Structure formats: structure tokens, C-alpha cells
């Protein structure tokens, strides 16, 4: 009886469910919608109540690149350059270390790993000031390498990769050893290809995190030509913030790559978050 009423109401329940979800999704998406429409307005239309532009000003997007003092293309490139390098280095060093922690047996391994884990909970703020002093001493202040280097090593990445590598069957190592493979061959040809899901997750997260990162570039960068996108956007906002339409075009251009990345990569990402989060 109970079951049957459930089934009869199924369609209605589903309808209500869809409407609720769509309502929430719409509310969450509205800021982005406003951003897109505002970026296509003329400047004198910006403050008006109507969200729609009279005529779509597509050239706003091109205008952002042509603005004086706003090196948008340059910042874009810097952000992608830094994020790519950091991602590459971090994934590489993390997976090497994770291999050592997960697949090799050596004395003191677990102690060292615990030490690594402990650093994960240190607030980055504690290290920020001395790190800046170190950068001064190394002469790396206001250079892109100064942005890349400190971020190239991550305890979290190591942790994530290790957790995944632990789940790969141990018998593979033995088989490889019998075949006479060196540890490097084992790492490069067996374990690393099998860790692809974790690699993809770590890659995306590191990339997005660094593409968005603001604190360290804000501290390090002095020359506008070497700004990354977030710092550039802040400079844009403080110097030409009145031009809301162009500012929104710039914001849209910095957000859209992330949205696209997420839409295409969402399966791997969702898996990865659960991998890192539930066990963490």
C-alpha cells in the first residue's frame, strides 16, 4: 500500500525535486549570468536596472587587451606559465616522494612520512615572512621563478599520491623485480601509469590552485609586467575599476577557462576529491 502510493507520486515528486534543484542552481548561477551580461554592456548602461545590454558589445573583450597600463594578455600568459611549471614540478616531485613512501621499504620511512603529514597542518602564513626573506637572499623577488620554486613541493600532493599508490597491488613490484627491473623502471613504467587517476586529480587541483593563487604573487611581484592574473585583476580593479563592463569582461575571461576545465574533467575531479577527502 505504502509502496504503491509512493509510485503514484513518483512523477510529482520528481517534478518538485527538479524544480527545487533548478531554483537553487539558478540562484547560484545568477552572479555569473550578471557578469556575462554586464561585460557586454556599454559603460553608460552598467548601473541600470535592466540586466540586458541594448546592443551586445562583443568588442569589450578585445578592448580589455588593448587597454593602456593593463597588460591583460601578459598577465594571462604569466598565470598560465607559472601554474603550468608549478603543476609539472609539483606532480613530479610528489609522485617520486610518494613512490618512496608507498612502494619502497627503508628505515625511518614512516617517521619521515609522519613529519610530512605534520607539516600539512601548518598555516602557510607562519612560513610566509621567512620565505620572503629567503627569496630576497636568493635574489628571486619579483621574478617568475620566485613564484614557481616555493610552490613546487607539496606535502598534500605527496600524501594524495601515496594514498593512491598504496592501493596498487604489491605483487606487481615482485613481478617487476623477478623480471630484473630497476626501481626506476618500476616507478616509471609500472606504478606511474597505474596512478593516472590520482595524477589527473593532482594536476587539475594544483593547476587551478596556482592559477588562482594570490597571496604569494601579491607579496613577491612589484613590476606590472610580471603580475599573474589575480594580482593583475586587482590592479585593474583599483586603477580602472570604474569601467565595470571591461572589468567584468576581464573577470569573465579569467573564470571561463576554469569553468570549461571543470565541465570536461568533472568525473575525475569528483573521484579525486573523494579519494583525498574521505581518507584524509
Amino acid at each position, binding site marked *: 500500500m*505504502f509502496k504503491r502510493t509512493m509510485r503514484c507520486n513518483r*512523477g510529482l515528486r*520528481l*517534478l518538485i525535486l*527538479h524544480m527545487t*534543484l*533548478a531554483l*537553487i*542552481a539558478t540562484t*547560484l*548561477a545568477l*552572479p*555569473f*549570468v*550578471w557578469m556575462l551580461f554586464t561585460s557586454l554592456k556599454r559603460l553608460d548602461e552598467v*548601473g*541600470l*536596472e535592466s*540586466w540586458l545590454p541594448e546592443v551586445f558589445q562583443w568588442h569589450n573583450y578585445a578592448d580589455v587587451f588593448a587597454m593602456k597600463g593593463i597588460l591583460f594578455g601578459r598577465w594571462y600568459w604569466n598565470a598560465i606559465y607559472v601554474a603550468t611549471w608549478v603543476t609539472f614540478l609539483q606532480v613530479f*616531485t610528489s609522485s*617520486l*616522494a610518494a613512490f*618512496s613512501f608507498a612502494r619502497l621499504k*627503508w*628505515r625511518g*620511512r614512516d617517521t619521515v612520512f609522519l613529519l*610530512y603529514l605534520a607539516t600539512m*597542518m*601548518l*598555516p*602557510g*602564513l*607562519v*612560513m610566509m*615572512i*621567512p620565505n620572503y626573506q*629567503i627569496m630576497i637572499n636568493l635574489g628571486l623577488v619579483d621574478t617568475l621563478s620566485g613564484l614557481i620554486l616555493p610552490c*613546487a*613541493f607539496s*606535502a598534500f600532493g*605527496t600524501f594524495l599520491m601515496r594514498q593512491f599508490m598504496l592501493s596498487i597491488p604489491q605483487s606487481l613490484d615482485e613481478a617487476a623485480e623477478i623480471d630484473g627491473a630497476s*626501481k626506476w623502471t618500476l*616507478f616509471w613504467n609500472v606504478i606511474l601509469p597505474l596512478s593516472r587517476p590520482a595524477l589527473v586529480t593532482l594536476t587539475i587541483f594544483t593547476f*587551478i590552485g596556482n592559477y*588562482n593563487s594570490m*597571496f604569494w604573487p601579491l607579496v613577491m611581484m612589484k613590476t606590472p609586467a610580471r603580475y599573474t592574473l*589575480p*594580482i593583475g*585583476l*586587482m590592479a585593474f*580593479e583599483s586603477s580602472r575599476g570604474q569601467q*565595470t563592463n571591461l*572589468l567584468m569582461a576581464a573577470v569573465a575571461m*579569467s*573564470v571561463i577557462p*576554469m569553468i570549461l576545465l*571543470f565541465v570536461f574533467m*568533472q568525473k575525475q575531479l569528483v573521484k579525486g*576529491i*573523494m579519494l583525498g577527502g574521505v581518507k584524509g
Partner: protein
Amino acid sequence: MRLRWSRNEIKNTTIGMVFLLPNILGFLIFTAIPLFISLFMAFTDWNLEMHNMFRSGSVKMVGFGNFIKLFTDPDFSFFLGNTLFLMLGIPFGVAGSLGAALLLNHNFKTGSRRLYWIIILTVVMTASCLMMLCVGMATSALTIIVCGVAGAAIIGGAFGGQSVYRTLFYLPSFTSGVATFILWKKLYSPENGPINNVLQPLLDYITPVAAKLSPGMAAFLAGALLVIMGIGAFLAVFRRVRLWHLGECGILGLVIGMGLLITPLLCCRLWSALSWGGYWGFAIAALGVCFAVFQLWRGRSFRSVYDYGLTDAVIIDGMFMLGLFCLLGLTNVVMAMPVEANAPGGYIAPKWLADYYWAKPALMLMGFWGAIGSNNMLLYLAGLSGISQDLYEAADIDGATPFQRFWHVTWPQLSGVTFFILIMSIMSGLQGGFETARVMTNGGPAGSTTTLAYYIYNEGFATGRLGYASAVSWTLFAMVFAVTIFNWKFGNKYTND
């Protein structure tokens, strides 16, 4: 421990270290060394204004001077208060993501294609009716846009099911960064931002209604709300004590639960406008405490199980606390209603980020926007899919209502995830608030959005008082560490099963 290393061991350790080398080098240079320098700095008077290349005064050790200064510094406690205030948004965000996860966890597969079309057709018709209605009344492009977006979402959802909604929910937190902060700064713009553009007409509409409300009436309403609040607090305290008495809650749970419950009542006292009402709440809470003390005294011995029922105390009494805070806020609003409405101009939409009192709620609202669909939602989704279906079937056989199903099956099963999420959010909340403060408000108006993180940045990089900034950051670290210890001690039980 064996001290001799066999040849094999040496070889293995060498190989292990070689693989670790690149990472550990970076770890030493950019984590370990800075850590020690920072600890050293915290005990010095290192100041870039006095110790730089032009004026080489020597850096002096000041012992605990920085820490003493910090604890007597009114700024520090003010900014700590700001940080904690902003963290009050966390439970709302967690509740939002739990709600989103519960909604997303339904089975979207209908089995029949017809149902899809029925859904879409109904929605399109409703939407077009709404549109015609609204456009007929006032030509507002906003309505059309909202309906269009909602329609697109629902069509996508009907075909794509969970993943489409999940994507839409997740976007705000995924893209969170300087770009979205700038976007929100523009949304909050007081004169012609879209939020106030919608809000102001609504407020204009309400003003004459509220103006009719006499101050006496408002005071009566506020008093009634406060009485409700007092009774709620009393019941919650009573519940906690009873649980303790039944042995379902240890002494630590009792202390933490009672502490949480009494906080809003103590805060009552701080709001001068409500002082008389505050005494009310205070009296009822005092009654509860007396009662609790009496029970404690009557209880034959202290329970040895000191951490039992802790999650319940933290989560349930935490929710009670939030409810009490909301009531308190509502009381304030009710009290102010007729006064504000009769002021010249009636209600005026808040200036959000430019207003001392509204800046923090504005940031919390933005945080809520990002928190609904964050990683927490995904964690909850994973947790929900891990709950055995048998439990629900058993609940159905017992004739449980949907609410009972949630409260007695889902919620206890998710307590591990909730605990983990809360701990993580608290840890990041303590260190948070830098980016929003720097991009949106510069810590202002009058320091109302300066969190500890922003304070450290300001002291360290703007003022150049490195020693003092390090001391603040180590104090912050101590707080985070305390939360971590709490997690280690009590979290394992809930998270590792």
C-alpha cells in the same frame, strides 16, 4: 632499536632517499628552515623600519615581549573576534551542502522517456506563464533572464540528471578566487549594484507597512521572541543535563554543550538595546545552570567516560546556539523596525561592504554562496552513497516518516563526515579571510573585516614589524593546533570507520 645497518638496508634506504631527494630538498628550504626562522623571529623585535640596509640597528631578543604585547593589544582581540564572527557562517554552509547533497542523492532515473517530456513541458509552461505575468506587469529583463536560466537548468537536469546539477552547484566554489571576489564587490555596490537594485524597491514596498507598527508593539514582539529564546535555551540545557544524567553524555560533552548554549545568552548582555531582554535570557540561562549544578551535585559520581556523546553535544547544541543567535538577531531587527521605517527615507538598502555592521554579513553571504556546492557537498554525497539501503528498509517497515528517516538513520550515519568537515572548516576558517579582506574591503570599514590572517599580512608586509607578525602567526598556529589535537583525540572514532 637496532643500530647496526645491514648492507641491504643501507642500499634500500639510499634508493628510498634518492627518490625522496627532490621533494625533501624543497621541504627543507621552504618549510623547515622558514619554520625555525619564524619561531626565532617571534621572540625578537625585528622591524623593517629599524633594521634595514640604511639603518642597521641590531635585532634584539625580547623574550615573550611580543606575546605579552599581543595579548594586551585590543586590536588583536578585535581581529580575533572578527575571525570568529566570520566563522559563524560555517555551520550554515555545512547545512547548505548537506541539503544540496540530500537533494542530489535522489534517484533521477525515471525509466520512461515520457516523464522527461512531462517535466520539461510543465516547467516550460509554468515559466512562460510567469514570464507573461511579470512582463505584463513590469517590463523587467531580469525575470526573463532568471526564467531562461532556470529553464535551461531544468532541461539540462532532466536529461543529464545528477551531474548537471552537481556541476552548477560546484562552480561557485571551484572558481572561487580574486575574480569572483571582484565580481561580488560589484554585485554589492551600494548605489547601483544589482543586489540593491532589486532590494531597494522591495524595501520601499515594506516601509509603509512597518511604519504602522508602533514601538510598543515592536517591543512586545521582541519580548515574546526573547521569551521563546529563553524557553528554547532552557529546554536545550535541560536536554543536555538529562542526557548527562542518563549517562548518554560524558562530562566533556556536558561542559562543551552547556558552553555553546550559554554563549548567545551572554551575548544578549552585550547588546545594549536589548539589555532588559538580555537579563531575561540571562535569568533563564542562570536557572538552567543552577539546575545543571544541582543535578551534578546530586549525580553520585563523575562519569569516567568523559568524551562520550561529544559529537552530539557539539553538533546539536551548536545548532541550538545558532538558532538562539538567529532569534537574537531577529529580536534586534523587530525592535529597530518601526524606528527605521519612520526615519526620513524609510528603509534604505544596506551599503554592504561599505557599512561597518553589514560588511561581515555580506562576506558571510558570499561564503555561503560558495559553500553550498563545495567539496563538502561531494563528501556528503560520498557518505550518503555509503549508507546501507537495509537501514532505510528497516525504518520503512517500522513506519518511519521522512523526517524520522533522516534524523535516526541518515544523520547518525553521516556524523563521521560531519565531524571531519567541521574540523576542516574550523581550521581553514581560523586562517582564512585574507583574500576577501584584501580584494574586497581592505580590512575596512574601520577594521570590521580584518581577520587574523590579514592582520599578519599587514603587520609583516605593510608595517614591516616582522617579529610581532611572527608572534601573531604562531598564536594562530597554536589555535589551529588545538583544533587538530581535538580532532586526533576524538575524531578517529568517528572518521575511521
